[in-house]
Structure formats: structure tokens, C-alpha cells
């Protein structure tokens, strides 16, 4: 109960900082829209229409936007010794991980809510055929992506590495999510299939494994 209160307290702090400065979200949303527009224009002036193109391009926007979210939510702790102060607080470091994870998920959910309609409009993607399947696949995938992204953003912040490296590290690790979710959505939107249990199993396994491992390892690696 105390841990939950601490998580909500830290999450509230991160979201309040974001609401007041509007640094991360504005940047992430504009970047996401730009990626979708540039790729739509690049793919034969927007002629590559349909579910498969839309989901693939939306994934590119989610990946880049997500990497920027991870970087920004951890960057607020790197100024003025904020991370050292946070680590000195009498709480489990796993609490810090979970609060950062939730902050990232809130930002990424906002990104997905804004970017997905842009993709739907530009690619003539008929999302109304299976909106729940789309939301559950993308939602479950973004949880796994945020799990490893939050861990490595902590490592990058602790090691004073350049931000660009974060994307290089998390993209290859998240490829199983990209492959499983695009294959799932291809089956649902192109062939009218129900959600494939084995593909969904890969996404859920990814979420469970990396949420657990990241939560355990975060404690070992985060340093002021």
C-alpha cells in the first residue's frame, strides 16, 4: 500500500512537470506526426494504402516517439542532482522504476491516441473492422517496449551516454514485439482472422519477462 502511494506520488510529480513545461509531449507528438506524413509521402505519394502499410508505419512512429519519451522522463532527473536526491529518498528503487514506467506509458498512450487517427486517415486504414483487437495488440506491445525502454533510459542517464544511443539499444531488443504485432494485425485486418493465440503469447511473454527482469535489474544499475 505504501509502495503504491509512493509510485503514484512519483508519477504525479513526473506528469505535473510535463504538464507545466510541455517539453516531452509536444515534441513527441510532432515527431510522430512528421514520421507518418514523411513515410506516407515517401511511399508513392500516399498511394500505399491499407492495413499492413498503416500498422508498419505507425510502429515506426511508436518506436521513435517512445524512445524520445524514455529519454525525456529520465532527463528531468539528471539536472541539479535530482537523481541523487531521488535515490536518497527512503523507498525501494523498484518503485522508481515502476513510476517511470507508468509515466512513459501515459506519454506513449497519448502519442498512440493522437498518431493512430493520422495513420488511419492518411492510409485509408479501416480501423473500425477490429478496433478492440488493434487496441489490445498495440497496448500489450507498448507495455513490453516501455519495460525495456525505461530500464535502459535509467542506464543511459546513470552512464551519461548520448541520447541517440538509447534508440540504438532498444530498437533491436523490441523487434519481437514489432514482428508479432504486425503479423497479428495482418491476420486480423487483411484476412479477417481472430487474434492468433501464439502471436499474442509472444507479446505477453515479452511483457512478463522484461517487466520482471527490468524491475529486478533496475535496482542494481541506477546510480546518481
Amino acid at each position: 500500500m505504501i509502495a503504491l502511494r509512493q509510485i503514484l506520488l512519483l508519477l504525479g510529480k513526473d506528469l505535473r512537470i510535463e504538464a507545466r513545461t510541455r517539453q516531452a509531449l509536444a515534441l513527441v507528438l510532432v515527431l510522430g506526426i512528421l514520421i507518418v506524413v514523411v513515410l506516407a509521402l515517401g511511399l508513392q505519394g500516399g498511394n500505399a494504402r491499407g492495413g499492413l502499410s498503416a500498422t508498419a508505419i505507425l510502429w515506426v512512429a511508436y518506436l521513435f516517439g517512445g524512445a524520445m519519451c524514455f529519454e525525456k522522463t529520465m532527463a528531468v532527473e539528471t539536472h541539479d542532482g535530482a537523481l541523487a536526491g531521488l535515490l536518497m529518498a527512503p523507498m525501494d528503487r523498484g518503485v522508481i522504476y515502476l513510476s517511470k514506467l507508468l509515466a512513459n506509458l501515459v506519454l506513449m498512450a497519448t502519442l498512440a491516441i493522437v498518431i493512430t487517427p493520422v495513420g488511419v486517415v492518411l492510409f485509408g486504414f479501416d480501423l473500425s473492422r477490429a478496433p478492440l483487437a488493434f487496441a489490445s495488440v498495440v497496448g500489450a506491445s507498448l507495455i513490453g517496449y516501455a519495460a525495456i525502454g525505461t530500464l535502459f533510459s535509467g542506464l543511459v542517464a546513470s552512464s551519461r551516454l548520448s541520447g541517440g544511443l538509447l534508440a540504438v539499444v532498444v530498437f533491436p531488443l523490441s523487434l519481437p514485439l514489432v514482428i508479432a504485432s504486425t503479423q497479428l494485425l495482418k491476420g486480423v485486418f487483411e484476412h479477417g482472422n481472430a487474434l492468433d493465440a501464439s502471436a499474442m503469447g509472444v507479446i505477453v511473454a515479452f511483457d512478463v519477462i522484461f517487466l520482471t527482469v527490468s524491475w529486478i535489474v533496475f535496482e542494481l544499475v541506477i546510480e546518481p
Partner: protein
Amino acid sequence: MSSSTRKLVIRAYWIVTLLVLAVGVWLSAYYAPIESEMGVIQKVFYFHLPAAFCMFGACFLVFVAGAGYLWQRDQRWDDLADAAAHVAVLLASVVLLTGMLWAKKAWGQWWTWSPRLTFSLILWLLYVVYLILRASIDSAQKRAMVCAVYGVIAFLDVPLVYLSVKLMDDIHPSSVELEPSMLLTLIVWMAGVALLTAGLVAGRFRLARISHKKSHDASGVTGGMA
């Protein structure tokens, strides 16, 4: 073990390794028959499959060394992970290139998004990123910590990559039947590549240990003079 005995053992090890590989080359060139469908290009299989097995071994070693470092914080684990990761990338490159040669002959193009080629590519990417990560961090302790975490996470990712690529359409043969002469050639190659892999990992590990010792000695001398 004295220095001269160690040198002798290392020399004997490499002579045996090269001999086994030479026998493997001879067997694949003159003893194993030419496969009827794939022709001469099938012979890359004798190098491709052992390289793939040893690549998994090297990736597992990166995982074990990473977990060992997180547990004990001993620099030797990090040196072992570094050595294994370099060899894993080398072997993954061999697997990828020989797979592409096979794809060109079998399907008329250098690249197809078949599950196994995709799997090799993602594995190669995962461990190339590991090397980039190592090169990006100056502090030895930070580098060891970050790379240990990445090494553990990357290896846990491997079965998920495998399961996810299995969802893609496959044009690969699901099993390969080998004649006894082909099997013998494969076994010799397997032994040769395994010896080569172990030798390369051990060699790089030893180099890293010597380098650490030298830099430690040098910093000690500088510190003393200061």
C-alpha cells in the same frame, strides 16, 4: 603453469584446430558428394551450421558472463563477455553471409524475409549493438555494468525473436537428410569450428587480461612518480 609451457600448450591447441579444419575442408571438397539440387553451393552448409551452433554458444557465454558480473562485480567476467561478444558477431556474420549465398542459389535472390534469415539478421544486430555500447562508454566500471545488463537482456530476447520470426511465412527446408559421408564431414567441421570458437574467445580474453594488467601497472608507476 610456467610461461614457456603455456606457450607450448597454446601452440599445440592452434595446430590441432587448424589440422581439424584442414581435414574438414578436404572432406567437404573431395569426400562428401555434391548435392543434386543445390550443387557445389551446398558445401557452405558444412560451415554454416557449425557456425550457427557456436554463435549460440558465444551468445550464451555473453549471458553467463553478464550475469556473473552482476553477481560478483569482477572485471574478469566483463572481459569474458567482451571476448565472447566479438566472436558471436564474427560467427553471426558468417551465418548471415553463408545463408545469403544459400538463398541466392535456392531462391534466386540474396535476401528473402524467411524466418531463419530474419532470425540471423536480428541476432547479428543485437550483438553488434552490444559492441557499439561497449565502445561508447569510457568508464570501465560503467561499461561493465551497462554491458552486463544488455548481455543478459539480449540473450533473454533470443527465444522471443525465434518465436516471433516463426510467425512469418517460411520457404526454408524444415529438415535436411544427410548421407553418412556428409554427416561425417559435418561432424569434423563442427569440431573444428567449436575449437576455433573456444580458441578465439580464450585468446581475446587473455589479451584483455594482459591489457588490464599493463594499464594497472602503468597507472601504479605514474601514481608512484606523482
